[in-house]
C-alpha cells in the first residue's frame, strides 16, 4: 500500500512545485514579497516532498534500516 503512496507522492511532486511557483509569482505581482526573495520556499517545498516520499518508501520497506 505504501509503495503506491510513494508513487502518488512522486507523481504529485511536479504539480505541487508548479502550484508553488505560480503562487510565488502571483504574490510578487500583487505587491508582496519579491520572487527573488521568496524563491527559497521552492527549495523547502521540494525538500519536504522528497522527505515525505522517502518516509513512504521506508514505511513500505519494513526490512529497511530505518
Amino acid at each position, binding site marked *: 500500500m505504501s509503495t*503506491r503512496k510513494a*508513487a*502518488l507522492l*512522486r*507523481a*504529485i*511532486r*511536479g*504539480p*505541487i*512545485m*508548479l*502550484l*508553488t*511557483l*505560480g*503562487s*510565488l*509569482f*502571483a504574490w*510578487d*505581482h500583487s*505587491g508582496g514579497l519579491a*520572487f527573488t526573495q521568496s524563491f527559497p520556499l521552492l527549495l523547502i517545498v521540494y525538500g519536504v516532498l522528497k522527505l515525505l516520499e522517502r518516509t513512504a518508501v521506508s514505511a513500505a520497506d519494513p526490512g529497511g534500516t530505518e
Partner: protein
Amino acid sequence: MRPRSMVGPLLLIGLGSLLLLHTLRPQPGLLAIFGRYWPFILIGWGLVRLLEIVYWRIRRFPLPAYGISGAEWTAIILICLAGSALHAVERYRPWDRLGAVASRRLELFGRSYEYTIAEQRLPAPTAARLLVENLRGTTRITGAETQEIRVSGRKTLRAVHDAEASQADRNTPVELSRDADRVVLRTNLDRVASDLAASAHIEVVVPRGTAVEVRSRNADLEASSLASLEFSSESGSARARNISGPVRFILGRAALISLVEATGPVEIAVRRGRDLEVEAVKGAVTLEGYYSGDLRLASLGGPLRFQNVQTTLKLQKLPGRIQMDLGDLTGVRLEGPVHFSSSRACDVQLDEFAQGAEISVDSGDIRLRPAPSALGPIHARTRSGDIELALPEQAAFQLRARTARGTIFNHFGPLLRETSEGERASVLTGGTTGHPMHLETMRGSITVRKDTVAPPSRSADRSPRQIEIGARKGTPRAQHHRVRYAHDGTVAGILISMRRRTSLPPPQPWANAGQRPPWL
C-alpha cells in the same frame, strides 16, 4: 491504461476564450492581461494536474513517474520568462516618471489622449489646510503671495477610441471643495479602470503658510514655500524646498527624495529608495528605510537618526556634510557623539568630527580624524579592514588598539607601546589621561598618526574630497579613494581605485597637493 491529461485542451479553451473576448471588447489588451495574470496559468495548470493525479489514484489507474514532464517544464520556464518580462514592462511605465513627455511613452496598446484641466479658483481660508488626492501623475504645489487656491494642469489617458477617452475624461472631474478651514482637491482617477492609465499633472498655487497633505499611489510631488508637508504614496519621487514646519514623507518605492531648507522636524520613511538629499534643516531629522543610491546630508541643525535593519547612524548636529551609499560613508564636520554601525561591508571616513564616535562595521576600512578642539571617546571596530586614526600631537588620550592579524603603524613614537599577543595579534597601548580610544580589527593594519594643527585654509586643502572621473553609467557612486599623509600631516598623494573592496589597489598617482609623493 491511464486516460490522457486535460491540461492541453483546457489551455486551448482558455486561450480561445481570451481571444474571443478580445475581439468582442478590445479594451484591456491581451499582453497586458497576460503580463498581469500569467502566474494564475501556472496555478491552474498545477491544480488540474494535481486533481487529475489524485483522481487517477482513486480510480486505481497507474500513475505517471513524473507529474509534470520535461517538455511541460520547458513550456513553464518559457511562460515564466515571458510573463516576467511583460510584467516588468507594465510596471515600469516610463510615463510614471517625473516630467515624462507624452511623446516619449512606450506605446503598447491604444492611443494616448490629453485633456486640459480647466483652471479653478477658491478663496483660501486663513491658516488653510489643503488635502490633495491625486493617484497618478505629478503634483506641483507652490506657495505664493496670494489669497486664493488656484488649480490648473492637464490629464492624460490611453484608450482605444475617442468615445471611450472622452467618457473617461468626464468620469474623472477635478474637484476643489472647501469644508470649514480645510480644502480638498481630488482628481478622482480611481473612478476609471486602471487600464486607461489615467494620470493628472496638476499645478496648485496656494497662499504661503498653507499646511498641505498629499496622498498618491504612483505620483511625483514638487512642493515649495509651505507651512508643513505630508506626502504618502506607494511609489514616486518628492522634491520639496522651503517648508517652514514639519515634513513627513511615507513612501514605498522612491527614486528620488530631495528636501532643501526646512524647519523640521523631518521624518522620511521609505521602504525602498534610491537617492536621498536633505539639506539645511533646522530641526530633528529621522530617516528610515533602504536606499540603494546616494544619501547626501548637509547642514542639519538638529539631531540626525538614520536607521534600517542593517545600518544605524546617529549624531547630534551636522554643520558639515555626509555622503553615504551602500558601501561608503564619508563625513566632514559632524557633531557627535557620532554613532554608526552597519552589519554589512562599509568603508567609513570621518573628518573633523566633535565629541567622539562609535563606529562598528562588518568589514571595511575606517579612517577617523577628529576635530582637535573637541575630542571625545572613540571606539572603532571592523572585522576585516584597516583602521587609521589621526590625533593632534598634544592630545591627551588613552589608546588601546588591537589587530588580530596585521601590522601596526605608530607615528607617536615611544609615547605608545606595541606588544604582541599570541602568534599574530598586535596591541598598541599608551597614554594615561584623556578620552579612551579603542580600535580593533580582526584582519588589517592599524595606523595612529599625528594630525598637526594647520591653518584653516590648508586644512581645507587637506580634507579629502570627491573626485569625479569621467561619466559613469547608472547611479553615481563615490569613488573609493585613499589619502596618504606624510609624517608632517600634509597630503602626500591620493590613491584612487576604481574597483571596490580591493584592500590595496595598485597605486595610481592622480594628484599631489604640493608635495612630491614618496613613490615618484
